[in-house]
């Protein structure tokens, strides 16, 4: 595998060129189902935002195969340090859609108690999906530290951290890769190169031949893989995870893909993404690509898609009802979890807030729109 040559498994006609897929039909269909659920989740969140029912979302269209392929190489005992665009990884491992929607609505059942913006998930079950931070790149060295703990205790688990092309310019990218290589940490760095960091194209982000090639200077393997190909991403991830479990150290994987939408619900990509690029990548849709492969294996026809789509639609419909019907978190959640024990000065501020609400009424909520 190479740092500048694209690793591909699924051919345009759906064939795999003799590649040993090594997955049961059920496993393959789980991947497919997750692709569709991820796309449906994204689509629903975009609509919820457009109709003013949630404040914000991050589009996911076009990058689902990277997430599903990568997640499929992990065990539930592994740790994920994800980015805000990683819906598919959570869904693959069985995070209930309702739990994700509780975050999107910021309600009382949200695992983070409505404190974070939408798409900033945090789950400990069924897999460690570590609380997402907005500042780019901070989680890379954190994954290396978690991996250090795994190694120290002799566990055979790995930490995977996922970030964007823009994230490779952060301080955390450098310290993360450097520490991991020096320590031979059981870490996989997954760079999801969707070619844009908001409006900045890769040409404005790096002068390297690829992102994967940066691995060489840190002293670890770098692999460039077709990010719209579930099986190629899975292959690269399996190898990297295997290396990590064997104590051979970290790997940097660059999954080359494309964000088939704006950066966020606040962004208008037509201001800066060339029309032709959208048209070109529309044809490379990762879901269609995987369908071709499944069809060749006689696992797919339009009915299979319809069945899974209907299932996903019903699942989301119920989850939205549940999340939207759940009230806001209580005011006390502003003051809890700052520390384990609430210090006196924070307790006093909380009491004053309750007292004022009792005397003068509640503060009024804004319209919940995020204008970025």
């Amino acid at each position, binding site marked *: 595998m190479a740092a500048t040559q694209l690793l591909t498994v699924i051919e345009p006609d759906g064939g795999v060129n003799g590649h040993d897929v090594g997955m049961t039909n059920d496993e393959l269909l789980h991947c497919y189902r997750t692709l569709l659920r991820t796309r449906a989740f994204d689509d629903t969140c975009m609509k919820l935002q457009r109709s003013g029912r949630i*404040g*914000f979302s991050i589009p996911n269209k076009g990058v689902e195969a990277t997430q599903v392929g990568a997640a499929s190489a992990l065990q539930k005992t592994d740790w994920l340090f994800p980015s805000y665009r990683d819906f598919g990884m959570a869904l693959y491992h069985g995070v209930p859609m309702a739990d994700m929607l509780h975050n999107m609505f*910021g*309600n009382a059942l949200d695992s983070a108690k*409505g*404190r*974070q*913006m939408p798409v*900033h998930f945090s789950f400990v079950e069924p897999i460690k999906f570590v609380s997402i*931070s*907005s*500042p*780019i*790149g901070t989680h890379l060295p954190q994954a290396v530290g978690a991996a250090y703990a795994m190694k120290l205790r002799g566990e055979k688990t790995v930490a995977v951290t996922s970030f964007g092309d*823009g*994230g490779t*310019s*952060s*301080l955390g990218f450098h310290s993360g890769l450097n520490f991991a290589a020096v320590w031979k940490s059981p870490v996989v760095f997954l760079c999801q190169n969707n070619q844009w*960091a*908001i*409006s*900045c194209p890769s040409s*404005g*982000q*790096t002068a390297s031949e690829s992102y994967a090639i940066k691995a060489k200077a840190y002293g670890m393997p770098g692999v460039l893989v077709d990010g719209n190909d579930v099986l190629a991403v899975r292959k690269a991830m399996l190898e990297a995870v295997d290396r990590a479990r064997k104590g051979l150290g970290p790997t940097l994987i660059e999954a080359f893909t494309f964000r088939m939408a704006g950066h966020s619900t*606040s*962004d208008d990509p037509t*201001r*800066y993404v060339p029309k032709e690029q959208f048209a070109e990548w529309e044809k490379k849709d990762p879901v269609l690509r995987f369908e071709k492969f499944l069809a060749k294996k006689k696992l797919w026809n339009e009915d299979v898609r319809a069945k899974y789509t209907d299932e996903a639609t019903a699942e989301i419909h119920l989850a939205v009802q549940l999340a939207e019907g759940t009230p*806001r*978190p209580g*005011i006390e*959640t*502003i*003051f809890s979890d*700052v520390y384990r024990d609430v210090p006196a*000065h*924070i307790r006093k*501020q*909380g009491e004053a*807030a309750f007292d*004022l609400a009792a*005397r*003068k*009424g*509640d*503060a*009024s*909520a*804004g319209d*919940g*729109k*995020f*204008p*970025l």
Partner: protein
Amino acid sequence: MATLTLLQAVNDALKTAMRDDPSVVVFGEDVGPKGGVFLATEGLTKEFGANRCFDTPLSEDGIIGTGIGMALNGLKPVCEIQFQDFIFPAFDQIVSEAAKFRYRSGGQYTCPMVIRTPYGGGIRGGLYHSQSGEAYFCHTPGLKVVIPSTPHDAKGLLLASIDDPDPVLFLEPKALYRQVKGEVPEGKYKVDLSTLRTVREGRNVTVFCYGAMVPVCERAAVQAAEKGIETLIVDLRTLLPLDEEGVIEAAKQTGRVVVVHEAPRFCGFGGEISAIIAENAIEYMEAPIARVTGFDTPFPNTLEHHYMPDERRVLDAIEHVHNY
């Protein structure tokens, strides 16, 4: 005179400075063709070319570090940090470098540069798109810290900051970007740094505030007036170096003081204002100084309206110090 939003006034100031002085360069994440995520730099690349307004890789440390080098060597960088919450990778460059170059080189090397960044809550941005970090920077000798609250001041203060011989952190209240409109003179004019603005005269209570809290305090003052309390509102607009004499004078005028900011209370700027008054005018005080601030917690998302000081809280404090 044109009527502009605060955001348009910032854009106008940048254009005015770039037309006036070819050494002014503007850069940061997404400021080029996209014109910035809030559109503060819209049209600059088109008018002045990609050599003078351009996108950088995603590194705040890189943005400020290279800005310092440009400033050392004769350019006038106006760096944008997309959200104040993302300034911390550049904290070292700002605090250890930009703020100390003049002192540590005996005045041989200086960093006349501006760092613009939107700060504050009110947009449902949660923990990392809402913070007010002014206190971290006000604790840094060598830096200037400026926060406008009107379109007129945004342009005049930004032009003064760009002309200033020292590094200026220019914090823009993003909640007001499109919310406030006002008359803005055409062409170049400056609002002197380290001057206060009297927003409203009043003889009963003095309220010190800045940025997005100014309109909140104005609304509270209207409600207080209905109850017969006349409020003097002072917009601090430059936090560092502060017009201390002006603060003391305004405090003495009423002997009853409320300080308002969105940032957490502990070690917040309100503590500095309170201490200055306690040290210089305590014998004029008729009531304890009251602070209305964000809570000493991270910034929440769904409940941000409870976190941020609103008219309710400001009015309650005004009444409290008035009736003391």
